[in-house]
């Protein structure tokens, strides 16, 4: 069966520090991968998605970036964090070109920027 991992689970970082959040998927090949941010009490905002290695599409211009160095690995990064980057970050995967293509989510990372 497929599983998706995210780490770390929680992170507290000072403003201006770098960021690296990692997401890995097991049990599937060539998944579509997504990074979302969820502000407190709000819905999900799609940040990045990837349909293959090295292929990244950005939905929202910001100081964050994403990379996909391997088929089942998706990394969210920042060179300098802002206070507004605080939030709950969710990674998700889906099977491309499947009927429903529903997305399956990881456990999330709670990021607090101080």
């Amino acid at each position, binding site marked *: 069966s497929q599983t998706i991992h995210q780490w770390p689970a929680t992170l507290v970082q000072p403003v201006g520090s770098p960021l690296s959040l990692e997401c890995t998927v097991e049990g599937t090949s060539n998944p*579509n991968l*997504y990074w979302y941010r969820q502000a407190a*009490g*709000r*819905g*999900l905002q*799609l940040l990045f*998605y990837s*349909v293959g290695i090295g292929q990244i*599409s950005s939905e929202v211009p910001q100081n964050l970036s994403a990379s996909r160095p391997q088929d089942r690995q998706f990394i969210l990064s920042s060179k300098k964090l802002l206070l507004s980057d605080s939030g*709950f970050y*969710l990674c*998700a995967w*889906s099977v*491309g*070109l499947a*009927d*429903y*293509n*529903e*997305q*399956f*989510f990881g*456990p*999330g990372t*709670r990021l607090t920027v101080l």
Partner: protein
Amino acid sequence: AQTVTQSQPEMSVQEAETVTLSCTYDTSESDYYLFWYKQPPSRQMILVIRQEAYKQQNATENRFSVNFQKAAKSFSLKISDSQLGDAAMYFCAYRREDSNYQLIWGAGTKLIIKP
């Protein structure tokens, strides 16, 4: 552009009773997919139920069912025999049929279960 609206920020229901969460969407597409996701306090996002727009029959998953009204662009979720474990944020989402990545999300409804 497609939008998804959940007009109920919060709903409460007595345990064992039935509750309906509303969702409306705006689209000019004729083929698409709709989803309800649940996010409990653990924050794990879990798929509850899904519906294809071309299917007239409403989807059902155990105690969860939808009332899909395509002409009205409405996709409500009914939870029967509510249980304490149903307490969560519920999100409605829309996916275009020709897109393999884009989900449009509603703002969510917080469901409280009263024991």
